[in-house]
């Protein structure tokens, strides 16, 4: 058992010049065989491992990561957390995730810095207002907090927003989810990793999966850059490369992979205490605890696995945010980067069994992955352990693309794609 993190352990270790801290997670050599191999050491994979151990007692598990844990979308997103989704299926899954987030620092004994500072979705025209009203009512009747704000409420909450009537995109109102906010993205990956490791799970970094082994229609293990590892069950949780890895097992998926870009300004003193999102100008913005303005764009329009950012997107993005918050024009862009988001035709994820026995896939979260992390891990662990989906993720099975029972959340992505 790991020693607990607390102010007391911090003081105690300070006395010893911090020489006594133990490793947050080991760097073990892979064993020849595991009960479960999770391909992908991002937030979702690590959470899956943690809940496999915690909720199902399955600890002979390896998380296999090509690079370093949390190095994909987990470490590249804009850290927004919310559960204000339109459809019942999504609202329930994302709110379950948010509820797990609300106790996660304590559960993991790792401060993930959940800051429920509220998420505003702006309405800029009558159509937006109708949609926001529909959404707010639906979310509330699903038992999730959600409210409508008038323009005056919005202005009072975020004085720096341009709420003038003659703005090109006037702000006619907004929805607010107070329980929404931000969390420290790296902390989520590291917290899950440390807690999973404490329960005996092997986290194997710098190990690339190069093949998925099958015996007929049953999975038997994986081939990796560090040799063959056998497994009774294999789970693919490789956001950004879901199709690529699934193809190793001969699976075709309804997924396309697009760049999603984000950027931060230099740090400044606090001016924004909530998350502001606007679909009409394609922008979302918050201020980090370091003081940086953190911004995200809509997804790029072409498939790419390069994680390259572009000039055009920062130009559009800066135009968008200075429309909403004109005083920002004197700030300076400090860093821009891109992640790869796997998107499904209905903008909802796949958390599912596959036609291959013992092979499971979790992907296609599009722009919603970070906020879905704990819930995704929890239901995916259930699906793997029980070999059947939990009620919460049953609607997110692959079959929906055949039956047509899609969960169309294009509007919910806040940025219309």
């Amino acid at each position, binding site marked *: 058992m790991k020693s607990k993190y607390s102010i007391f352990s911090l003081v105690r270790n300070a006395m010893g010049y911090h020489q006594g801290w133990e490793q947050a997670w080991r760097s073990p050599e892979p064993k020849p065989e595991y009960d479960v191999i999770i391909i992908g050491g991002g937030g979702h994979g690590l959470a899956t491992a943690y809940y496999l151990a915690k909720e199902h007692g399955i600890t002979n598990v390896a998380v296999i990561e090509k690079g370093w844990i949390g190095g994909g979308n987990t470490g590249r997103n804009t850290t927004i957390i919310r559960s204000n989704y339109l459809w019942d299926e999504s609202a329930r899954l994302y709110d379950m995730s948010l509820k797990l987030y609300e106790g996660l620092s304590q559960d993991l004994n790792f401060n993930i810095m959940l800051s429920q500072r509220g998420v505003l979705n702006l309405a800029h025209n009558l159509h937006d207002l109708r949609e926001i009203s529909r959404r707010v009512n639906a979310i509330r009747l699903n038992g999730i907090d959600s409210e409508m704000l008038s323009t005056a409420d919005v202005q009072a909450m975020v004085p720096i927003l341009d709420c003038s009537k003659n703005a090109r995109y006037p702000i006619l109102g907004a929805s607010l989810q107070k329980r929404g906010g931000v969390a420290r993205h790296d902390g989520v990956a590291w917290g899950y990793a440390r807690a999973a490791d404490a329960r005996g799970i092997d986290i194997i970094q710098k190990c690339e999966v190069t093949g998925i082994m099958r015996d007929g229609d049953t999975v038997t293990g994986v081939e990796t850059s560090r040799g063959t590892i056998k497994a009774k069950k294999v789970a693919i949780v490789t956001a950004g490369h879901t199709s690529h890895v699934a193809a190793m097992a001969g699976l075709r998926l309804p997924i396309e*992979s697009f760049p999603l870009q984000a950027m931060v300004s230099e740090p400044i003193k606090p001016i924004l205490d909530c998350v502001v999102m606007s679909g009409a100008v394609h922008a979302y913005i918050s201020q980090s605890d370091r003081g940086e303005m953190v911004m995200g764009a809509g997804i790029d329009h072409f498939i790419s696995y390069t994680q390259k950012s572009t000039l055009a997107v920062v130009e559009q993005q800066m135009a968008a945010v200075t429309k909403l918050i004109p005083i920002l024009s004197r700030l300076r862009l400090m860093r821009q980067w891109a992640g790869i988001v796997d998107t499904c035709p209905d903008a909802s994820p796949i958390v599912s069994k596959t036609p291959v026995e013992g092979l499971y896939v979790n992907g296609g979260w599009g722009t919603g992955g970070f906020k879905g992390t704990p819930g995704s891990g929890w239901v995916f662990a259930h699906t793997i352990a029980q070999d059947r989906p939990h009620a919460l993720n049953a609607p997110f099975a692959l079959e929906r693309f055949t039956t047509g029972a899609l969960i169309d959340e294009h509007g919910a992505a806040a940025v219309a794609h």
Partner: protein
Amino acid sequence: MFLINCPWCGERDEEEFAYGGEAHIVRPKDPDALNDEEWADYLFMRKNTKGNYLERWNHAHGCRRWFNMQRNTATHEFGAVYKIGEKPPK
């Protein structure tokens, strides 16, 4: 921003173009002959290749013509540009 070689207009900035996804997905001549799974495959399943990919682009803010192009999705290297109906390069 890419410089894309429209087969009708020549090199133009990417912002003039719209993306059309995977190329050479042909609409079934007789949709009724397909079962739901086959139809779903046509509707939704995509190769999404990491590497050389044949895809459709449309010079939306130019000549409005569609064309096919080979592009490496892992490096952004551009390959052949060819017209709709033409065979992809070997």
